[in-house]
């Protein structure tokens, strides 16, 4: 009887360990996390796969950038900057951050598969 109890406990322990281990190995990879930062400071960290459609407004020295999230994609919808390079960049792609130099604003993917893109 005693041995049987020990046996059950051990089996349970092993099963629990296996379950935890499985959960750890199979945890969802944080694939598409977009990071919005201003002057090097992170303002938002957004998981695009679960984020609902919305717009975010960010201001810098009185100038405004409007960021739009739509269907798991993110882009600069409009901006109070002179050149509009950030808006023209379009939807965010791997290895190509959306940068608004005048307003010091950057939207980029967090951990891509590659370390950098020569461009």
């Amino acid at each position, binding site marked *: 009887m005693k*041995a*049987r109890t*020990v*046996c059950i406990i*051990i*089996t349970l*322990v*092993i099963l629990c*360990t296996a379950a935890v281990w499985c959960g750890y190995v199979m945890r969802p990879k944080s694939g598409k996390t977009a990071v919005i*930062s201003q*002057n*090097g400071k992170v303002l938002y960290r957004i998981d695009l796969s679960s984020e609902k459609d919305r717009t975010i407004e960010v201001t810098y020295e009185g100038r405004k950038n409007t960021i739009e999230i739509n269907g798991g994609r993110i882009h600069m919808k409009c901006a109070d900057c*002179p*050149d509009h*390079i950030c808006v023209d960049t379009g939807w965010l*792609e*791997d*290895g*190509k*951050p959306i*940068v608004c*130099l005048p307003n*010091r604003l*950057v939207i980029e993917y967090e951990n891509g*598969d*590659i*370390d*950098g*893109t*020569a*461009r």
Partner: protein
Amino acid sequence: MKKKYAAAVLLSALLMLNSCAANNSDNSNANVTDDIKNSGSVFAMDTYMTITAYGQNGKKGIEAAQKEITRLEKLWSVTDENSEIYSIDHSGGSEVPISAETEELLNFAIDMHRQTKGALDITLYPVLRAWGFTTGKYRVPDDSEISALLECKGVERISVVNGNASVPENTEIDLGAVAKGCAGDAAAKALKEQGVTSALLDLGGNIQTIGDAKPDGTKWKVGIRDPFGEGSIGTLTVGECAVITSGGYERFFEQDGVIYKHILDPETGRPADSGLASVTVIGSEGRLCDALSTSLYVMGLDDACAYWRNSEDLEMILISDEGGVYVTEGIAEDFSPNVENVTVIER
């Protein structure tokens, strides 16, 4: 019998837990010493730069690199009235004292002008400005305006003697084709001086790495931007080096159905039309890769291959306007393309 069975299960369970525990402690040690990942960014030289450094010295390494980049920008900016380059350009032809670093970079650019038979020219700034590529107010200058401006260019007009430099009036120096690469070299040096042995610098798309591998032992994976669309045309696996790309897609404008790209042919003063869409140069020195990515783009496929055959420790990935990808044999095995039409260039 039951007891024996239980003992066996107990023993194996203990062994399992034990080995797990051992593994875990190994990993956490590695985390403490090597795997710490720090990143920082700088807005400088008209672009956005990021630095990622691994290891416990990463943070102070990044700070040193950021300082170095900001310092060099103040020396070499073509628009900052306090920069050394601005002083040379606006001194009305008289000599201006310059720092040892500026002198070295000017001499390097002058030497590269010779080596590339004029394809690299740091005196094209007035022409670039006439096209609006410096301001974003694009326009197509007429032939007479271009030829008048070309009269003022000429690397041979730059005088660099004993810590002084000058150019004749109306001639202007712009280090745009070499400054970022050189700043990358200096930033890499600053990181190493702080004890960083594994780091990646992304200076507005110029990639420079420190260390042959990341702390997990894998090499650096660098994507090469697709000049025709989204994403990359392939991935390059590298150790410590610089990977620098130039392409017309970076900045261009369209007028009356014609596309005008920002890399000018110094001979014509017009956008280079050599048949190449982008040039990536891989080598140990950032400033050399930077200078060559621009000038090999101007030269075109055949001349770029000839240049490569006459040089050492240099590799290239060229993409033609038709979408053909040409990879030099030294890196052919390290390049995994996402496209099919890849040709290996042999010595």
